[in-house]
């Protein structure tokens, strides 16, 4: 029995809406039935540039949330920063455009069976999938607090409707242009103990994920993070997106962030070895 990519479907999907929100684009795509198998943390791989594109690789985007509406059917929401040529192309696609998508891909955030105290930490547009996660956690009776950080205020993604799905939201910017001046990790230990946090769910730049892992290392808190590595395929065949991850026996494996991630246990990732090669059998 094959288990890799087991829910993934390749299909043509239509852009339902494409709106600019601060520094990002909020893109809604009609995807139909597959919303039933999308879980918070999963991602979608999209072909960019059209048929004669010189960009031959798909772009991976975190699915920020899905909804199954009786009127419009299943829709998937993406929050996209128009940074590189692929994401700029996607952000420039008007309503009604067709996209070649493969989804859902990757691992998802673990949802607790018992109501717990969850802290969601997002960096930049990394906050996007956390709002969909917050909805699911709330529906399971969890208490959900959220910390968002970015370099400047316009890079904070925090939609009005998203704020309703969390008990509290605290914003940090490095230049102080929104919320508190500083980084999300600044008062993390204090927040963990004041609010009896059981699990941290995080999504954002690798530096932030590593910093959170180091801070919670001395605590009982479980840290589930969605990692970001450059991917060529998104489906496990190219071996480019690997991260060093510690196995139960203490050895290290180079795991693919597309199929063994993007959601990983932060304490298992060998952050100090990222970009290097473990010593044994090089």
């Amino acid at each position: 029995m094959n288990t890799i990519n087991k829910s993934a479907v390749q299909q043509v999907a239509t852009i339902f809406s494409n709106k600019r929100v601060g520094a990002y684009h909020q893109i809604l795509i009609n995807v139909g039935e597959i919303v039933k198998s999308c879980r918070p943390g999963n991602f979608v791989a999209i072909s960019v540039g059209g048929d004669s594109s010189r960009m031959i690789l798909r772009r991976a985007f975190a699915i920020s949330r899905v909804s199954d509406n009786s009127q419009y059917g299943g829709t998937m929401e993406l929050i996209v920063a128009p940074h590189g040529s692929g994401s700029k192309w996607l952000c420039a696609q008007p309503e009604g455009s067709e996209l070649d998508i493969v989804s859902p891909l990757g691992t998802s955030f673990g949802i607790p069976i018992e109501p717990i105290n969850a802290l969601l930490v997002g960096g930049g547009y990394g906050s996007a999938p956390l709002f969909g996660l917050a909805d699911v956690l709330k529906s399971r009776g969890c208490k959900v607090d959220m910390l968002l950080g970015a370099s400047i205020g316009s890079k904070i993604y925090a939609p009005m409707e998203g704020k309703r799905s969390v008990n509290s939201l605290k914003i940090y910017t490095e230049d102080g242009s929104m919320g508190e001046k500083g980084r999300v990790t600044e008062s993390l230990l204090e927040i963990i103990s004041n609010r009896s946090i059981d699990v941290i769910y995080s999504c954002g730049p690798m530096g932030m994920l590593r910093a959170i892992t180091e801070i919670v290392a001395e605590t009982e808190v479980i840290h589930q993070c969605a990692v970001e590595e450059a991917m060529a395929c998104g489906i496990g065949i190219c071996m480019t997106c690997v991260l060093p991850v510690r196995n139960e026996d203490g050895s290290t494996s180079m795991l693919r962030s597309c199929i063994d991630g993007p959601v990983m246990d932060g304490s298992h990732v060998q952050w100090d070895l990222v970009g290097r090669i473990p010593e044994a059998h090089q």
Partner: protein
Amino acid sequence: MTLPVDMSTTLGSAWFPTPIFTASGCASSGKELAQFFALKDVGAIVTKSVMTKPRHGRPTPRMAETPSGMLNSIGLQGPGIDAFLAHDVPWLIEQKARVIVSIAGETIEEYSTLARKLRSASGISAVEVNISCPNVENRGLVFACDPDASRRVIDGVRKTIGGELPIIAKLSPDVTNLPEIAKGVVDAGADALALINTVLGMVINLETMKPHLGGKTGGLSGPAIRPIAVRAIYQVHAALPHIPILGMGGVASGRDALELIFAGASGISVGTASFGNPTALITIQNELRDLLAARGFATVQQAIGYAHREETQ
């Protein structure tokens, strides 16, 4: 009304129902693609080159997209031959896929050791001897850049499994005289040739102002290298018209596959195209069948090397 095209092809003594294969290193061991199409529906699964021991490969970043192509620098990460033969091959055979196992070694002896391990495995159609991986620490280890080393590797493999499994030698286009290297490995016992491996390249990151890839250099693949593949296959087929060639290099459509077949390829491996499109092999296979039919070819065999024919007026 067009007649159905006989898509079957052979590489040495191995028969395949269609000429469209995966490319080694671009399909892992098949499990990942099995969600998108039935592996038995393509010619063969050419597995990622495996070494004797498990291997971590090169550090990240391992990838850089380039115009109509990409550079990779994986460095032969893999589980090692024992785990591979215990888990991956039986699974592929269970799927009724035809399997070509690709092997890579650091020494001439390692290739022989790997070939010996394959003797005990059943159900394999052929062995691809990858002597041209560009992502090794020491470029001196690229056997395929050295005619003598190439011959010695193939000679060692032939002594171990020659006559039992067709031996396909995978060559590098990064050489001055490819037909000469091809002749050398054929003399040493290769039954077929795989052309081409990736082309050595580099990208420099303008932010860090250093080579972007962790391994500094990488292998260029994708449509950007297709004309190099066509040239290499054409040259080698002209020099060795009776040696079957598994052609590859930037094939992304049926049109591209047919171009390589006209140049002299008996089979086509599709690699990088699967990264952008998990169902690329099936699309390419269907397009190729239609293109052959539209040109009046009843079999793939008739089209192999067709660009070399002499016009009789």
